[in-house]
């Protein structure tokens, strides 16, 4: 049975179609989920895609956090449902307190759209199990508020518990604390990532296909479960 991966569309979501395409490419079945429904339709995993939910007015992700679909997603995620938040999705996960810390204004104060090199720091999440720890990948980053911030205690805990999922190498494009590009919950099932693996699933339209591993990982984990 192919894994069914939900992709949530909020008003202002932009990369939902890309995320669904990436799921298909990785062999899964994408299931569109609507922000206004309190129902996950029995999916095996969920992606919160990139974009500007509610215009990113107020703070990125601040309004989306209260969408009806989140009232179903938050308890499911706490109970172990694999969730990947990409860019705006990461911001929503932080605002919803499923992940610690916050994403703040880029150090250079401008929107950045560029390819970045990341090091995958852990393969123990369902979204990175297909990579090896230490593996380097190139994927696009595109955000204005992508600088990860958290208090020193939280940062220390994240490091100690191995919850840093990916780090910027070569350069830190946005001033993220400890070069953090992505983190996970203590169980590992909820992952937030600022760069966009769904834009790197095909040489033709992306910098390469290094990002496919996130989607392939969860699908193979679900198949084995």
């Amino acid at each position: 049975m192919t894994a069914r991966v939900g992709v949530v569309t909020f008003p202002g979501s932009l990369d939902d179609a890309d995320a669904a395409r990436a799921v298909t490419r990785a062999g899964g079945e994408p299931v569109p989920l609507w922000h206004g429904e309190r129902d996950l339709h029995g999916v095996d995993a969920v992606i919160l895609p990139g974009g500007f939910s509610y215009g990113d007015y107020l703070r990125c992700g601040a309004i989306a956090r209260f969408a009806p679909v989140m009232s179903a997603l938050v308890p499911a995620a706490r109970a172990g449902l694999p969730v990947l938040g990409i860019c705006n999705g990461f911001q929503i996960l932080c605002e919803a307190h499923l992940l610690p810390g916050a994403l703040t204004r880029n150090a250079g104060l401008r929107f950045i759209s560029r390819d970045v090199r990341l090091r995958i720091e852990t393969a123990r999440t369902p979204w990175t199990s297909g990579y090896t720890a230490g593996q380097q990948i190139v994927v696009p980053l595109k955000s204005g508020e992508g600088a990860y911030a958290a208090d020193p205690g939280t940062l220390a805990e994240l490091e100690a518990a191995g919850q840093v999922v990916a780090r910027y190498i070569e350069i830190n494009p946005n001033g993220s604390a400890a070069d953090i590009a992505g983190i996970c919950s203590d169980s590992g099932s909820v992952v937030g990532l600022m760069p966009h693996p769904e834009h790197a699933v095909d040489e033709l339209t992306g910098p390469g296909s290094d990002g496919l591993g996130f989607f392939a990982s969860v699908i193979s984990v679900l198949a084995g479960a």
Partner: protein
Amino acid sequence: MARVVVDVVLKPEIHDPQGEAIAGACRRLGFGQVAGIRQGKRFEVELSGPADDAALARIAELAAELLANPVLEDFSLRTV
């Protein structure tokens, strides 16, 4: 060290889509008594000297040139 707060608000006739979207969210969250929201900025300016008249006059200049966009915004100063 003295501190001056510069409040920057959109001119009343300028459209504030952010404020509207936030007000909409408030109502969806059950805060029915919110009739509207206008979002502005607030700058806390720390001075190396006292907040005397001369300094305030300089800060007002600064606000007009840099902190507020005169095409869209108004500003006001207060010492705290």
